[in-house]
């Protein structure tokens, strides 16, 4: 935020320099942030810290986790139906689940923000952009996912592309509505008056003042995207073997629910915790950065 010193203050309650300090003073948000950071770190470092090869089968099939009577430290989270180490698979699975979420929200968010901000900045293109956005909004994410998987075949990429496309119109609308109110501010007028170029006006004034609200939207969207991606993988339409993905791992465990519930429960609970902490953090971020959006 220090580089923003020459930009005018954001519209509404100013985020202030120490917004993250206020964010982390909320114990729930702090816990969520720490948890998510740990999950992201361990997912990134999966190849370094995984105790076993996540794809190698062993003789010890359906071994329960260490906290049960028959568990052992050789496989802290037990093994799955093919004797593969659950801890290593969970680490790799989290890696792919997070990657799907980050890529689709990132791609869709950037594209949507650009569209929305441009629409507010250049009123000539506004009606055209918004008409396209309206049409795109008529395709729910799950239908786009199904359609793309039908054409491209099951896999992580069609899911990422579909979720990214589905994020574009929502993000464009949010970005536009924020940008429209920013464009009415006097400092935009002032910037124009002193002869700033459109590019400078766009990046230094508009983008910097709209970015925090867009970030809030994206953080709240992240959880939803992860859930849809995992559901598609669960159905066999998303990520497929040989890779590991949490939704797919839950699907592989459903046949053993009776004898070895941990195979389905561990990946499902991991998804739940990732989405829950992302949502809690998104809510807290909104309260700190932009209380006006509070629902």
């Amino acid at each position, binding site marked *: 935020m220090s580089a923003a010193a020459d930009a005018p203050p954001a519209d509404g309650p100013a985020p202030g320099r120490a917004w993250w300090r206020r964010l982390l003073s909320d114990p729930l948000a702090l816990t969520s942030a720490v948890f998510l950071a740990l999950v992201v770190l361990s997912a990134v470092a999966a190849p370094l810290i995984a105790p076993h090869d996540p794809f190698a089968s062993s003789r010890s099939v359906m071994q329960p986790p260490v906290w049960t009577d028959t568990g052992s430290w050789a496989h802290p989270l037990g093994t799955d139906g093919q004797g593969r180490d659950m801890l290593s698979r969970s680490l790799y699975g989290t890696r792919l689940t997070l990657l799907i979420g980050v890529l689709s929200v990132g791609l869709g968010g950037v594209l949507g923000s650009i569209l929305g901000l441009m629409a507010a900045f250049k009123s000539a293109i506004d009606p055209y952009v918004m008409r396209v956005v309206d049409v795109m909004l008529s395709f729910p994410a799950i239908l786009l996912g199904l*359609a793309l998987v039908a*054409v*491209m075949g*099951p896999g992580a990429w069609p899911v990422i592309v579909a979720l990214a496309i589905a994020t574009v119109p929502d993000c464009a609308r949010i970005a536009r509505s924020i940008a429209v109110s920013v464009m009415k501010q006097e400092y935009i007028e002032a910037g124009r008056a002193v002869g700033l170029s459109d590019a400078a006006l766009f990046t230094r004034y508009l983008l910097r003042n709209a970015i925090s609200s867009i970030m809030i939207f994206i953080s709240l969207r992240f959880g939803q995207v992860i859930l849809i991606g995992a559901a598609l993988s669960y159905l066999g339409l998303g990520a497929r073997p040989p890779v590991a993905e949490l939704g797919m791992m839950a699907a592989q465990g459903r046949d053993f629910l009776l004898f070895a519930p941990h195979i*389905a429960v561990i990946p499902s609970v991991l998804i739940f915790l990732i989405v829950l902490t992302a949502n809690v953090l998104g809510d807290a971020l909104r309260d700190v950065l932009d209380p006006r959006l509070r629902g």
Partner: protein
Amino acid sequence: MMTQVANRLLVSIPVLFGVLLLGFFLLILVPGDPAIVLAGPMATPEIVDAIRADMGLDRPVLIQFASYLGRVLQGDLGRSLISNKTVVSELAAAIGPTAELMLACLIWSIPLGIAMGTLAAVHRGRLIDRIIMAISVAGVSLPIFFICLILIQLVGVHWQLLPFIGRGGPLWTLEGLRHVALPALSLGAIFIGPVARMTRSSVLEVLKLDHVRTARAKGLSERRVILRHGLRNALIPVVTLVGLQAGYLLGGAVVTESIFSYPGLGRLAVGAILSSDFPLAQGAILILALAFILINMIVDILYALLDPRVQA
């Protein structure tokens, strides 16, 4: 009012066109040559050529699209590659069960969500508000397949209270109700959260308004103030929410139907995609998109009816 509806219908035209374009591309962009897929592995090149000419695949794309439009408008969506039944008859058989599932889900989750949201708003900031909001956040964070698996395991397998495979018949029969119960519980579980959240913020908004203060000043009981003057006006955004969340609900239905082997549109679509039955997949996606557009249209019109201010 009429212009409102007419405008809404006009906006839907480009959307409908987009949906049809999507359906068309689903058919011509299939991996490999659709004529070869249709002809099967044993076909000679002559048969493939004949099928290609028969399907019009040798003609320009625009003409193919025009003839596709013509066929769809006449209700011809082709035949399933697997069952060889017409796609339309397969879809017709699946619409009813999906509508029943939706009904069975909404009928308990919306009232419960509204009740929870109102309770939270009235007791804002207190423990009960925090508990209800925590339940809502947890509800929107749970993967729906996990809810399904838990319900199947507990209610279906362990307690053996309810069946968890397929459909037992129409909703008004006991067997039909018993079979739809678990899928409707799973689907409703992910819907309570959004409804409760929306109701809470909407009630909080309305309780600040002048007419509520007047009602209090008149000496009406708090209960009457909240139910008659608060909740009633707060329900308008909740109606919109159901429309906005139709896509979310649809996604949940696709998963729920597949897990419970419930013979609705969602399972049909997933099954068709997994078995590379392109005409059926195209038909299922087309009809789901149409349903989504229709729901949003109805909600918009309902919104205008409920809120006189929108009519301007």
